[in-house]
């Protein structure tokens, strides 16, 4: 049976941070829940109504109290243990339903707050996320899972950006599932066998995750023409833009090693350094760019290389070296509005000027 508790004005029923297993109902008097807002730090007071429950969430969820329960006027409260509360609620299911509504509203609110803060950093758009999930399963020969996800993609986004591709992947998954079974058969996405099991159209960038990695460049050489290197290069660029730096790096490396097309080899050389930087390999990226600058001082992307080297030094905590590189970017002749110049200027300002 719940007990009655009597509290004097200005006393505290529980403190923030207390571990408590009691749930309260205000019968008489005035009680306020005081806490500070997570986002603004502002003090908030929530006055409890007579007949209202408080302390429910922390007791049920077994986590510390999130507020101070302060008595404003002499109060009498009913004190439940968790089992007593559950027994009581089980007989008054309306109370649970009401609580569920309150909780789900709170959950919705805090969920939205979190989402808002996440947006700036890395939240993935659901359409892309769903597609990539399916792609992951297909790449790993989990055909029935790939089939499910691609099917869902087409249900929700029939005219979506990746709908055509999803259709092809769905077909590929179905075919592979029938022909080989889950987990078996040639790699449907990774590596060269890709063309064997589906009638792919010629020039889709969708083969991106596939070919760059793992296929030794030499194996491809004899039958390739220039267009293939352009395609490989943009595949790798697309991987980079998706944040798949490791795979992009392999792609650029393959193009450089093939060394068959000077234009794309040179571009790839620069982009390989960008990958190293994106992978937080500060030293390797600095070494890589230094080598390019020494061997190809007229490389069209020198300004960008210097800028990235500056960033790498900054990441390494050497502000002086970083500034040196940013200043070097500014002394380069050429386009005044080049993005490297603008970025270097900004970086210097952020570091407290030149």
């Amino acid at each position, binding site marked *: 049976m719940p007990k009655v508790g009597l509290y004097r004005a200005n006393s505290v029923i529980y403190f923030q941070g207390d571990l408590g297993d009691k749930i309260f109902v205000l019968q008489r008097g005035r009680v306020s829940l005081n806490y*500070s807002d*997570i*986002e*603004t*730090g502002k003090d908030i007071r929530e006055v409890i109504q007579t007949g209202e429950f408080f302390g*429910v*969430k*922390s007791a*049920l*969820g077994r*986590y510390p109290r*999130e507020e101070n329960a302060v008595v404003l006027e002499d109060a009498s409260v009913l004190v439940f243990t968790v089992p007593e509360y*559950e027994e009581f*609620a*089980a*007989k008054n*299911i309306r109370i*649970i*339903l009401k*609580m*569920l509504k309150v*909780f*789900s509203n*709170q*959950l*919705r609110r*805090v*969920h939205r*707050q*979190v989402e808002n*803060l*996440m947006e*700036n*950093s*890395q939240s*993935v758009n*659901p*359409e892309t*996320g*769903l597609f*990539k*999930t*399916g792609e*992951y399963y297909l790449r*790993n020969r989990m055909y*029935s*899972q790939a089939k*499910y*996800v691609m099917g*869902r993609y087409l249900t*929700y986004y029939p005219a979506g950006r990746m709908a055509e591709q999803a259709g092809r992947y769905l077909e590929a998954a179905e075919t592979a599932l029938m022909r080989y079974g*889950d987990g078996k058969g040639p790699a449907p996405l990774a590596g060269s066998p890709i063309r064997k099991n589906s009638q792919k159209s010629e020039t889709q960038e969708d083969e991106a995750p596939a070919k760059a990695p793992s296929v030794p460049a030499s194996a491809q050489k004899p039958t390739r023409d220039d267009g293939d290197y352009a395609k490989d290069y943009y595949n790798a660029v697309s991987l980079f833009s998706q*944040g*798949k730096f*490791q795979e992009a790096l392999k792609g650029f490396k393959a193009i450089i090693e093939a060394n068959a097309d000077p234009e794309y080899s040179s571009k790839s050389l620069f982009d390989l350094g960008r990958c190293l930087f*994106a*992978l*937080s390999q500060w030293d390797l990226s600095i070494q890589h760019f230094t080598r390019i600058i020494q061997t190809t001082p007229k490389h069209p992307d020198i300004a960008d290389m210097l800028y990235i080297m500056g960033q790498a030094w900054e*990441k390494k*905590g050497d502000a002086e070296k970083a500034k040196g590189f940013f200043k070097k970017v500014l002394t380069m002749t050429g386009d005044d509005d080049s993005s490297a110049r603008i970025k270097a200027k900004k970086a210097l300002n952020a570091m407290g000027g030149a």
Partner: protein
Amino acid sequence: MSDLAAFSRFARTFQSGEIIFSEYEPGDSFYLIQAGRVRITKIVGEIEKNIDILQPPEIFGEMAILEGAPRSATAIAMDTVKVLEFNRANFEILMMGNPQIALRLLRLFAKRIYDQKRRFMILTLEDPQAKVADVFLMLFETQGAQAGEQDGDRREIKATVDDVAHWAGMTVAEAQNILGHFSNQRRVELYQDRIVVKNINDFTRFVNSRRKK
């Protein structure tokens, strides 16, 4: 659970390996496991990570009550799985006859609200280093009980760089950078699957000093 017989029209069966719902899919139903195990996974980078393995009588997919929110993880049947599937429209019918399920859902929501609030506290910190430090504190709070033997102020936390990036709402490269910095200062030791924090109180003070008062 015999009283659930009346709900057979909500019953669904999934074969082993079958996806119940996929990460990022819009969701409007939640599930009550009656038989079999369900694996909850998430694809992080190029790895499918197991988040949880659930069995009867657990509930999953309950976040579907958040209108329009895409699923945050994938649920896959590990065995032949029998579930009851409910949505916002019909869940009151279930609850009315089954206070125990309603209570279980209530406890689950209480926990979710706390988890999300704690997460929000991390994200509201402006200093990225403080964010990472607060991720340590949060993981320690949630893992504390099972973290086993702790030596003085030294704490071992089960987490990868990806986990830290996820909780701190930053890119893996950023998280790696900050972890590297802490490691250079000899405040943490980094391993593939865990992080050893040398002095947890040091990080508590640091985070508190960066929180808005």
